[in-house]
């Protein structure tokens, strides 16, 4: 029974990690149909922001939850202005340009911080369920994923910004005719997506450490989760993360973590083949 509880926690942790890692990309893709391949690097930058903030004496919780998203959100706003703005409607060009951005950011970070892994201590210890030890940090990750989803839901459903954002997402020219500024909404949305990625990076930094190339692992999974999820930002991300996270974790238990990764990727390919519009292209349509 305890063993089941431990596995359940690990599976929820895997799902929560996927949600955190993917939600920023989902916001950007869902709102603007831009596939931001620099998303992994945003996560990486969030990790560096949190790590450096801790090194400079800022409390770790503040570093992870405030400094990281703010820093990366700002970086996202700048990049949107310089690069992304010119690529709306050109999906493949956006993919290529953001891939270039990702290389650029890796290069910049390597130049500044070198290639050695830096780390932060996990601020929480472990607890026990029966005779098994479970990391409390897993509980934190799961909680944060839930909080982020809830806040995002409230933002999109119950605020003016959310309403404007959703209307621009559904029909940009109509929104413009009604006096909204699609371009401004896009800029804010991109910054929001970047900030969410930064937040994920901050939260995950104590677990994995940071190195300039860590973004590569994240972007692929995020990309796959977002495409697998479909057009609904929240429902899609949560649904896809649940499927992929569960498969990943269970297969990792049975075999090795690497095989778990392979299983995740394989299931993603099959899912996209069966549901070309993603999960929310067929189920939960019209949800946020």
């Amino acid at each position, binding site marked *: 029974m305890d063993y089941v509880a431990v596995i359940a926690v690990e599976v929820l942790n895997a799902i929560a990690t996927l949600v955190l890692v993917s939600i920023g990309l989902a916001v950007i893709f869902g709102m603007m149909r831009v596939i931001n391949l620099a998303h992994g690097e945003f996560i990486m930058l969030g990790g560096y922001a949190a790590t450096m903030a801790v090194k400079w004496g800022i409390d770790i919780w503040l570093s992870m939850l405030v400094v990281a998203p703010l820093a990366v959100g700002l970086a996202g706003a700048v990049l949107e202005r310089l690069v992304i703005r010119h690529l709306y409607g050109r999906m493949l060009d956006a993919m290529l340009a953001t891939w270039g951005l990702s290389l650029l950011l890796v290069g*910049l970070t390597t*130049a500044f911080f070198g290639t050695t892994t830096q780390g932060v201590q996990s601020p929480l210890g472990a607890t026990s369920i029966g005779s098994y030890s479970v990391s409390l940090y897993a509980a934190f990750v799961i909680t944060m994923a839930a909080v982020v989803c809830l806040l995002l839901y409230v933002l999109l459903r119950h605020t003016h910004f959310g309403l404007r954002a959703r209307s621009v997402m559904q029909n940009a020219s109509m929104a413009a005719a009604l006096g909204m500024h699609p371009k401004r909404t896009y800029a804010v949305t991109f910054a929001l997506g970047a900030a969410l990625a930064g937040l994920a990076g901050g939260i995950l930094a104590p677990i994995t450490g940071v190195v300039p190339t860590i973004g590569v692992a994240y972007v692929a999974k995020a990309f796959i989760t977002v495409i697998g999820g479909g057009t609904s930002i929240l429902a899609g991300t949560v649904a896809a993360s649940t499927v992929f996270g569960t498969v990943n974790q269970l297969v990792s238990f049975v075999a090795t973590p690497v095989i778990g990764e392979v299983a995740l990727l394989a299931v993603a390919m099959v899912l996209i083949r069966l549901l070309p519009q993603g999960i929310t292209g067929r189920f939960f349509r019209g949800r946020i």
Partner: protein
Amino acid sequence: MDVSEKAMRKHLPTFACLVAAVTAICVLPSAVETFTLVEFTVYAIMAIFSLSLAFAWGYGGILCFGQAAFFGAGAYAYAIGVLNVGESTVAMLLAVAVPMLLATVLGYFMFFGRISDVYLGVVTLTVTLILYNLANSTSGDQYRIGAAVLGGFNGMPSLPTLNVPGSPGRLLDSVQMFQVCVVCLASVYIGLRALLSAHFGRVVVAVRENELRANLLGYDARKYKLGAFVISGGIAGLAGGLFANWGAFTSPTVFGLAQSAQAIIWVIVGGVGTLLGPVIGCIAIQWLTAYLGTIGWVNPNLVLGLILVLFVLTIPKGLAPILFMPFQWLLRQRSQVGNHEGRIP
């Protein structure tokens, strides 16, 4: 325009390529030192790799984000083949055949499943990641195919290199290796030009132009895309096999995202929709990366990333239109029925 003039115009790029190749083979080995020749060899190998994507993307309209999957499959197929058979000829055939098989399976899954461009990018990206992960996880002696230990993230060192077909003892030296690679490059280029002038190639381009109309004319567009994809995979595999030879070594990085990214950058910089453009883009960027390596303080990723972003934003058609402008102007002056070969530089 009389017949001989028309024929000459149609075959000019092929002829020029042959001249360049023969010159390179005969002149360069004595003109440059061995170290430089070895550099040129890898440029030629990567140029073959760039042609594989130039064909699939520029002419077939298939933007494959994981072209390295076929490159790596070719490299590993060669490695496993040569270690088991002991002779390089069969191994090189495997280096072409195995990626083609992979492309057939993957292509069938994608094109007959009617997935869109973006999803195609996802799937191809995913496959290369799967292969990278699998290759990385094969550390330990139990992971072997026949006599070939896969070696995990350390890769497979000390591979036997190309020998004269039939005589396993007579290995090719670096001059001969260079010559073989140049011949392969020239053959692939000329072969692709011929393919694109033939019925098959023209339908592939038509499918890229307007898939619905191609279908309505009675062509099964899915089969043509699959065909283009498989050929592209085979060419990438050839490059991979030659690359494994070049370093006498292969490791999981041949499946890496960086390898795929490079191919995409070469094609964009060189010009999507041409064959020579990506070759030039490839050689230029390879040279630039090597040069940056000697400088040391400039990070290559930074420069490559900057180049990619700038090109997408400002020169999306790449260098080819600029470089070939004088030739294109000459060719466009007189155009005849069925004479579309002049448009494939």
